[in-house]
């Protein structure tokens, strides 16, 4: 079927999902959600991290199978057990992580798995047709300057995204889902994306558009669906919503009160860690300080450079501009090892990939850092470790148990023990409570308070707004690799989110 002709009447229902529910390991992630996408509309899907947006998209994309619920595409009920089935049914998805083969050409990526063949079933691949069809697809999207034979590796992120969209379109999609499509794009590239989206909707394609950037939602979408904690909050025409209203609907939940109170006996001391004008390829012009006994939270959207900022302090990325000082004296770290030597601790966001050696024992993991950087203190650390671990309430049969068999919360406690063993001056935490249960979370929060009592400076990145607001003495908000502003403890979620999205930075500040 020629991919570039309008095939779907505008206004008809392209996709109707009803009662979509999904739970993982007993946690309900999505509960009875209804969604209707009309042909030719851009439908915004918004909600905080963990609201269930990704889960919904993945179910519509055939990655996850819904526990309950029905999906009707173009009047026919469908069920997907594989992404290819969804694509064949007309539901294509452009994920944030591109599914592209970097060493293959644009055409080979688009037609992968269904390469056109000459002379019937066993003929050779029709490379000429692949090229022609690819170029037709790209022209149809209004893209010039990309040739079908270009290696995907040599493309910019925006161009790779175009390839993903072209691939989605090539299935003659009725519905295209886009997950944070602008997260990695520069401003003028966003314009190109907008124009592509408009072309698609003109053809009657329905777009499900997930983004944290409220400006884009209002620029593009005609209808907006708001999710919160796996529940459907509202579906409204964009014209009936203001940004402030939207943010209120997204976050409108009571601030849970399981954060331990700030101890009264902690006096915030002198400046421990100070960054002035720090910049490199990932972050720019970062000036901040963290005092002894202080918890500074860093909020911001995914991809706003929060992780990179911590990595820069820790020595993973070199500092190109500006300077870092620790306790008043300049700190020059060019490798994580030097970061550790300066007694910085870095609790990484992905503990399984970067925080732990999963098939090694609890003890080996807990001693990992001290052993490699301060070998002479290993003996002491080994003697103290059982105490440290039991103080953290690590639940395990023995210290020789492999950490892969621990729960997420206990794994995180092992990570913490690993870093406590160097008596850190500064603790850099990246998503310290991601994927751990409430009890473990509470213990992590308590530990953070204990650390401040000892005069440790804590710099914490978190995507969970209640956590940032509940734990931090001050909140720094990052946007596009720079600091967008600072908010005091107890700021509202609206204020943080507004500053992070750039939606309402004036009134929030």
């Amino acid at each position, binding site marked *: 079927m020629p991919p570039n002709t309008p095939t779907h009447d505008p206004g008809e229902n392209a996709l109707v999902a009803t009662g979509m529910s999904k739970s993982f390991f007993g946690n309900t992630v999505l509960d009875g959600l209804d969604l209707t996408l009309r042909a030719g509309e851009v439908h915004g899907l918004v909600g905080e991290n963990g609201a269930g947006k990704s889960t919904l998209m993945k179910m519509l994309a055939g990655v996850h199978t819904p526990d309950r619920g029905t999906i009707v595409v173009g009047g026919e009920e469908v069920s997907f057990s594989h992404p290819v089935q969804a694509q064949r049914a007309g539901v294509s998805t452009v994920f944030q992580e591109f599914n592209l*083969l970097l*060493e293959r050409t644009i055409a080979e990526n688009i037609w992968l798995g269904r390469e056109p*063949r000459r002379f019937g079933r066993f003929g050779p691949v029709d490379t000429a047709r692949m090229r022609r069809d690819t170029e037709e697809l790209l022209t149809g999207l209004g893209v010039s300057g990309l040739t079908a034979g270009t290696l995907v590796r040599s493309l910019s992120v925006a161009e790779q995204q175009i390839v993903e969209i072209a691939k989605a379109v090539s299935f003659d999609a009725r519905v295209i889902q886009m997950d944070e499509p602008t997260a990695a794009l520069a401003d003028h590239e966003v314009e190109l994306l907008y124009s592509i989206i408009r072309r698609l909707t003109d053809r009657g394609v329905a777009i499900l558009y997930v983004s944290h950037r409220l400006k884009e939602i209002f620029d593009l979408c005609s209808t907006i669906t708001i999710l919160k904690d796996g529940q459907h909050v509202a579906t409204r025409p964009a014209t009936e919503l203001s940004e402030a209203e939207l943010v209120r609907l997204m976050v409108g939940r009571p601030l849970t009160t399981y954060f331990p109170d700030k101890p009264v006996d902690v006096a915030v001391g002198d400046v421990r860690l100070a960054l002035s004008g720090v910049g490199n390829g990932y972050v720019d012009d970062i000036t901040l300080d963290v005092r002894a006994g202080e918890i500074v939270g860093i909020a911001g959207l995914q991809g706003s450079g929060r992780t990179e900022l911590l990595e820069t302090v820790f020595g993973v990325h070199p500092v190109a501009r500006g300077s870092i000082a620790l306790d008043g004296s300049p700190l020059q770290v060019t490798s994580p090892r030097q970061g550790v030597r300066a007694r910085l601790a870095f609790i990484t966001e992905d503990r399984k990939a970067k925080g732990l050696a999963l098939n090694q024992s609890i003890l080996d993991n807990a001693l990992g850092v001290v052993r490699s950087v301060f070998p002479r203190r290993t003996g002491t650390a080994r003697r103290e470790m059982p105490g440290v671990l039991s103080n953290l309430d690590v639940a395990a049969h023995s210290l020789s148990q492999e950490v892969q068999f621990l729960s997420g919360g206990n794994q995180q406690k092992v990570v913490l023990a690993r870093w406590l063993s160097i008596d850190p001056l500064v603790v850099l935490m990246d998503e310290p409570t991601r994927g751990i249960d409430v009890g473990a979370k509470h213990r992590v929060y308590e530990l953070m308070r204990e650390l401040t009592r000892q005069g440790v400076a804590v710099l914490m990145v978190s995507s969970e707004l209640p956590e940032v607001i509940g734990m931090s003495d001050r909140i720094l908000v990052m946007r596009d690799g720079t600091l967008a502003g600072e908010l005091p403890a107890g700021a509202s979620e609206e204020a943080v989110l507004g500053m992070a999205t750039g939606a309402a930075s004036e009134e929030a500040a």
Partner: protein
Amino acid sequence: MSATTDRTPDPASTPDAASSVENRESVRRRRAARPRGARQLDSTALIYLVLVGVIVVSAVLTAMEGRNFFSQGNIWAVLTAMSVLGLIAVGQTLVILVGSLDLSVPYVVSLSTVIAAGGMKGLDSNLSAALVNTLVVCAVVGFVMGVLVSVFDVHGFIASLGVGLIVSGYLATNYQGSHGDASPALELLGRSGIAAVIPTSFIILLVAALLVTLMLRYTRLGHHVYAIGGNRDVARLSGVRTALPVIAVHVLCSLLAGLAGLLLLSRTGVGLPTIGSQGRYDLLSIAAVVLGGTLLSGGKGSVVGTLGGVAIFAVLDNVMGVMQVNPFLKDFVRGLVIVLAVAVYARRSVVRRPPRFAGTRPSLPTPGSITGSTTKEETA
């Protein structure tokens, strides 16, 4: 490129020129995402450039020994030396492209010589039956490895190591010393060629390489081999059936190794149960493939590059033979070539995340640091 980067003003310090900076910024970012400089040679061109260099140096060294590198006899010798390793390396290329590995090739080569020679018993009338028999046995060996790798998820390294050991044990128990006798027609083929310059065995290699190249380029199987080697999950999510291509390339690899064994038999005249392991075709074929620019992790590479790698080894061996170099030094030179080549490729193919801001110096993550995996950052 770095010169322009140096002059890029700090975006934050010039807010009034923001838009123009933004544009230049994105252009720069785009360039950073590309492999450094579009003018950079691709690895196949590079390997053939190196080959030309090696040939020139070898010609000079041979001339210093008072001999002619380009004499008919010498060219014949080099091309003959290429053909056996070449066939094996072509098969190894396929296996490596799909993300697997085949360490069993030397044993399959030996197996092929003894089975074929044993079947022929020196008679032309037994030739075709023995050939079919041999190739079927080789195909079965490859099939077993393919199934182990694709269905049972055993890494190719282990699967082929295990199968290789089994075959080697079978050979050692059942065959002591030479076995059987090649048919006269096969031996004639081993001596034949075009104009006493190009041996038939080399033509067989070229035909095999051409067929495999066409397969990689123009069949779904070929496309899927690259796709699976590049990223198995992406391939699977795109609806590619991932088991079939893996099995197919293992079968092809073993068949090509069997063919290489037949070429050896055409020269030796008898089946030799240790000829493959003496030739160290496992490591040499992998080395030739990697030297030819194929990624050891799969997904990228070509048979043409592999032939270049094989040619470099053949020329080096030839000149060292002419110069009567100590065999240990031979290995030393081979090892040096492999390590240098891979070091060069590694430098060229560092995956970079395009930086958000212009650094005053290129502030890119170093290859070995843990930053590589931060590209998939923050997937909530």
